[in-house]
């Protein structure tokens, strides 16, 4: 089952049986640029990057992206940078795994973003999507189709925040422009 989320929609990460969500995965997939032969091919590779920024109140304390694959506390892990994309068949080409039970107590929000490192806008990238998955049962919580998303190179995708003893996910889905998450920081702050 796929939940296509609309902007600003909030989903409490309570499971149907009352248990709270314990692990989520942000997946990002896109289709690699077509190859133009071997010699002299100036294939313009497409490199999208998934990042997660950890906030304590309004203050960013840690970030997980392709140059820092594991948060210092070990709760957020990036599975590795993909520089070219995949088959575009719906598989995740980059993923960030969050163990919500191990997130340090002062971290109360985690923001997930997507950036086009090589600069193509989402109109130029085929079959691009990002999604949030309940890692314990593989169920998709939210999905955004990035392809056709207009002349933007980045998206602030969603945030996961502490509510009481559990966590809640809020879809943000705001398009923006930037090469890495740093460029997005001014756009992220209003969503905290």
């Amino acid at each position, binding site marked *: 089952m796929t939940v296509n989320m609309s902007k600003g929609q909030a989903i409490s990460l309570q499971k149907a049986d009352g248990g709270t969500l314990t692990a989520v995965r942000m997946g990002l997939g896109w289709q690699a640029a077509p190859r133009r032969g071997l010699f002299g091919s100036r294939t313009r590779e497409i490199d999208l990057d998934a990042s997660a920024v950890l906030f304590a109140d309004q203050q960013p304390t840690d970030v997980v992206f392709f140059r820092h694959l594991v948060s210092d506390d070990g709760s957020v892990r990036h599975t590795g940078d993909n520089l070219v994309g995949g088959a575009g068949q719906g598989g995740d080409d980059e993923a960030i795994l969050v163990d919500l039970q191990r997130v*340090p107590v002062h971290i109360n929000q985690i923001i997930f973003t997507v950036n086009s490192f090589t600069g193509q806008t989402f109109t130029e990238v085929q079959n691009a999507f990002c999604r949030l998955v309940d890692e314990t049962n593989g169920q998709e919580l939210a999905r955004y189709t990035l392809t056709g998303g207009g002349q933007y190179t980045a998206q602030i995708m969603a945030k996961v925040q502490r509510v009481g003893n559990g966590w809640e996910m809020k879809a943000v889905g705001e398009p923006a422009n930037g090469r890495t998450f740093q460029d997005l920081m001014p756009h992220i702050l209003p969503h905290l």
Partner: protein
Amino acid sequence: MTAELVRGQNHPLPQTRLEIRISAGQPIVAGATLGDEQGTVRGAEWVAHPASPQLPGIEVSKQAAADHRLAVDLGALAESVHRVTVLLALPTGVGGPVRFGSLAAPFTAVTGLDGAEVASYTVTGLDAESAVVALELYRRQGVWKVRAVGQGYAGGLAAMLQDQGLPQAAELAAEINEAVARGMARSVAQPPPRPGDDGRVRTATAGGSSDPGPVPAPPQSPVPPQPPAAAGSGGPVDYQHPGRRTATPPTPPPAVPPAAPGRPAQPVAGDASGWTMDERLYNQVWGMFEDLARTAAAYRSAVDFADSRMEQELDRVLSDPRSRIGTAADTARTEARAKHTALVDQARAALDRDLAQLAAEAEVVEPALPPAYARWDGPVWHGYQAPMEIPMALRLGDLHLPERTDLRIPMLVRLPLERGLWIDAGRSGSVEGAMLDSGSLRTLASDTAVAIAARLLAVYPVGEFQLQVIDPAGSASASYAPLLESGALRAPMAGAQGVTATLAALTRRVDLVQMAVRSGAADALPPDLDTAEQLLIVHDFPHGFDDRAVTQLRYLADEGPSVGVHLMMVADREDAREYGPVLDPLWRSLLRLTPVADDHLADPWVGHAWTFEPSLVPAGSRVLWQVMGQVARAREAYGR
């Protein structure tokens, strides 16, 4: 055409005489219950089990086995029987696994008498269950069908039989378990891995010695059947190298017992990936190291945040002239402090939870460590025997963080050593070092060097490790007594005169081996060249060294490790200060260790400062004498 069923799927059965095959990779109990139209098992006589294996129309095995073949004749069943339930259960009370989650998913297949598979079903997704209903054959409008069920029961056979409406479920379950246990007690134990490979197997006995002593026996793990040796009997040629284990599949890691609900799993030694127990323990220790680093990072970051937030809030109160004095300010201050305390308490609780889990893990891991990883006061050293293989790593000492000083992580470095070592005999700012006079600090440094050198001698196979010692002032000779008296250290310790000769010999060895490696002519090495790994220990540097010797030493430090010549310096950097910055690269290339606790090592993940403490022989202990005596005797026995 085989139908591969998924859970809940059914499939018609074309014939009434069938065989049900079960394979689980581990001995399990297989049985069958008969049910009436409502699915109720009317009594104990409706259950086919090891103590009563035959019923009209069905026959099961008399004992637990990894593979079962149940014979079923649906036509011979009583008219009142409408359902045959095939059940699997783990034998209890025999020390095997207690949950299906710890073994491979059981495979079941319904076949005709000719062996052709009609339908198969792999029972996946099991966890803490110890009994499971695998398949169900049922009669629907005169036609028999099979359905994949896969319903597990954490309460075991009793719970399962109860669920099927059997009045005396508990009694029958007890009877079945008893019959199975009796059968298993009689059966021949599985062969130990690689029998006759004495001393080589570190996988079975966690210590690598024949007498594991008080080492807790690892939970029984399934041992893959060894291929029969082709001992020149005209059988197929065995291409396997007899002394190499890489081709055989690794024994699976020990099963982790099920966790009580709401509590973390019980730790088990060797609970990590790896081809051997040696490798698993190495990975586990490094996993604990990383976990401790990360949980401490989480705690420190939370406390830092709490501190800075409180500071900001207090500042805000101060900077507001309206609220600077009066009750409003007091309330704000109290609130800020309370917020701080609450967050720090929460962080501390999370840290304590993690630390308790790591401490429990350390408690089971430490006694299971083989000699190369064990502390000198570990019992595994008392059963020491010369090993046959180089271990993966060596323990240099312990690491801990101030958050919990009694939680010690073994500091393991890979063998062969990738870097030289520098035992710092200087008083370089550490608190403990400052309390000692320089003489006793030097003695401690010598003891540290000897403890590491002796450990290397002990964990390398006989004759594969050589020690060279340069002790120009003779100040370290007392520390070497156990090595010298036992005969484990044969090469005389070089005094001031021997510096040049020792360095020249090692330099020649490095040159020759490098040439041989580069030209691919390893067999052209002169016969007198010792190919064993070499460790050169230099005491009192630069005493007795001239410029030429210093140059040679730097050459050895740079080029040696790649060709098996390692360097250990026991030195105070201050003593060599007249050489100036030319020696800086040398010091930097060495791994600095301290003879007393000192927080100078950083972990590779977060970069905390870890306090290192060397692994020293406890005062008054004879373990070093004993071990070194064993090394010398083994050498004699091997004629090396």
